[in-house]
C-alpha cells in the first residue's frame, strides 16, 4: 500500500463516519428524498466520466466516455430534479389551499 492510498483511505473512513453522523439525523419521513438526494450525489462519477471521455483522444475512449457521460449526467440531473420535486411537497401543518386535481 502506498502512502498516497493510505491518505485516501483515511479520507474515506472519516467521510464514512461523517456520513453516519449526518444521515442518522434524517427523520424517517424524509427517507425517500434522502435516497434520491444521495442518488444524485453519487452522480459525482460524472467527474470521472468527463475525464475518461474528454481528456484522451482515442476512439474507444470517445465511445466509452460518451456512454459514461450520458449515464452519469442522467443520474445527476434526474436525481436533483426528482429530489427537488419531492421536497417541495413536504409541508408542515397548515391549511394548504386544496388543489382540484393534484396530478
Amino acid at each position, binding site marked *: *500500500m*502506498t502512502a498516497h492510498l493510505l491518505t*485516501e483511505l483515511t479520507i*474515506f473512513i472519516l467521510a*464514512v*463516519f*461523517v*456520513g453516519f453522523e*449526518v*444521515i442518522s*439525523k434524517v*427523520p*424517517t*419521513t*424524509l427517507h*425517500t*428524498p434522502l435516497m*434520491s*438526494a*444521495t*442518488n*444524485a*450525489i*453519487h452522480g*459525482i*462519477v*460524472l*467527474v*470521472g*466520466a*468527463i*475525464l*475518461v*471521455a*474528454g*481528456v*484522451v483522444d*482515442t476512439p*474507444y*475512449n*470517445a465511445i*466509452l466516455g460518451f456512454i*459514461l457521460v*450520458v*449515464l452519469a*449526467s*442522467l*443520474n*445527476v*440531473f*434526474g436525481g*436533483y430534479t*426528482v429530489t427537488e*420535486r*419531492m421536497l417541495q411537497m*413536504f*409541508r*408542515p401543518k397548515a391549511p*394548504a389551499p386544496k388543489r382540484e386535481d*393534484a396530478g
Partner: protein
Amino acid sequence: MTADTTLANPVDIAYLITAICFIVGLSRLSSPKTARLGNRISALGMLIAVVAVLTQGIVNWIVVGVALVIGAAVGIVSAQRVKMTAMPQMVALFNGAGGGAAALVAAGELLKLYHTGQPITYDVSFTSVLSAVIGALSFAGSIIAFLKLQEVMTGRPITYPGQQVVNALLLLAILVSWGFVVAGSPYALNYFFVALGCAFVLGILFVLPIGGADMPVVISLLNSFTGLAAAATGFVLGNSVLIIAGALVGASGTLLTVLMGRAMNRSITNVLFGAFGAIKTTAAAGAAKQHNVRSVSADDVAAMLAYANEVIVVPGYGMAVAQAQHSIRELEDQLEKRGVEVKYAIHPVAGRMPGHMNVLLAEANVPYTSLYDMDEINPEFERADVALVVGANDVTNPAARTDKTSPIYGMPILDVDKAANVVVLKRSMNSGFAGIDNPLFDDPKTVMLFGDAKKSIDGVVAGVKALS
C-alpha cells in the same frame, strides 16, 4: 525534511468546496423545513465540481457536450414526468445509472493506462477491479429491481435449484480474476472484463430471488453499493471528491439497509439469501385456511368513521398501487370537518422503499406532522375508535407477535388490533403478495371493505358527505 511549498491545484480546492456542499446539503435533510435548501446546496457543489473538471484540458468537447445534454434532458424530463407512486423504480434506475457509470469509469481509466503504456500500480489495479465489480453488481441489480417494481417481470421471488452454488462460483471467478489483474498477468485486461462480466451476472442473480416486500432493503443496499463503487472509482482516479461523496452515499445506504432490516426483524443475509418469499408461498399453500370475515359496504364504513373521535389510517403498498392518497386526503378533510381527529401510522417497511408512504401522502398535501412512526403511534391505537388499514397487510399481522411458526414472527408491527374497531381495505381475500395468513381479518372487531382502495375510499367519502 523541507516544507512542501507546492501550491494547491485550484481544481482540488474546488473539489473540497464540493465535498463541503455535499455534507452541508445532507445535514440539512434533518428537517423538512431546511431540506430543499440542502438539496440546492448539494446541487451547487455538483456544479462546481463539473465546472472544475471541464477546465482539465478537455479535447473531446463535442463528445462531452452532446453526452451531457442528452443525459441532462432525459434525466430532467423523466424526473419531472414520473408519478410519485413510481418513485421506487425511478430511484432504482438512477442508482443503476450511477453504478454502471462508476464501473465503466474504472474500466476506462484502466484501458487508458494500458494503451498509453503507463505503469499500473497495485493500488490502481486493485481498486479498479473493486470499483468495476461493485458498480456492475449495482447496475445489474438495480435493473432487475426496476423491472420487478415496474412489474415488467414478476415481483415474486424467482428461485431455482443450485442458486447458492451458482452465486458462489461467480464470486469465486471474480476473486480469481481479481487476483490475476493485481498480480499483473499479461492477460490482465481480459481478466478485468471477466470479473466485470461475472459481477454483472451475479447482480442479476442476487436480486432475482428477492420478493417485492423486501424491496426496501434491496433498494437501500443497492444505493449503498453505488456509493461504494463511486468511492472505489475515486481511489482509481486519485480523486478525493469522489471518495468523500461515495463514502457519504455508502454510509447512507448502509444505515437505511440496517434500519429496514431491523424493521423487519431480519438480518441482511437473511433477506439476500433466505429466499424469504419462497418459504412464505409454500407456507401459504400448506395452510389454505378458511376465513370467516365480515364484509361491509362503504356507507357502513362512512358511518363508523364519521361518529368516531379518533381515526388512525394505516397505509400500505395497496394505497400506492391504487393511487389512493388523494382520496385519503379528501376523507381526512371530511372527517376533520366533523371534528374527527385523523392520524397516520407509518411502518418503516410499508411500500417498496424507505419513506415511500410519506412521499405519497406529502404529494396529497397531508402535512408531515400528521404522520407518525411506529413507536410513536403504537400506544395510540388503544385510544383510537377506528384503525383504517388501506392496502397494508404484513405490517399489521398480529401473528408476528404470537405465532412462532409464522415466517414474519418477531417482526415489529403496528398494533392495529388494539383499536376499538378495525376496517381493512383490500382488493380481495386472495392471500396476496406475501401469502401469509393474517388473523387480523378474522378478528370479531374487524370488518373488510373489498375493492380497489381508491374506489372504496371515494365511496366512503361520498358516504361521509351524505351524513352531514
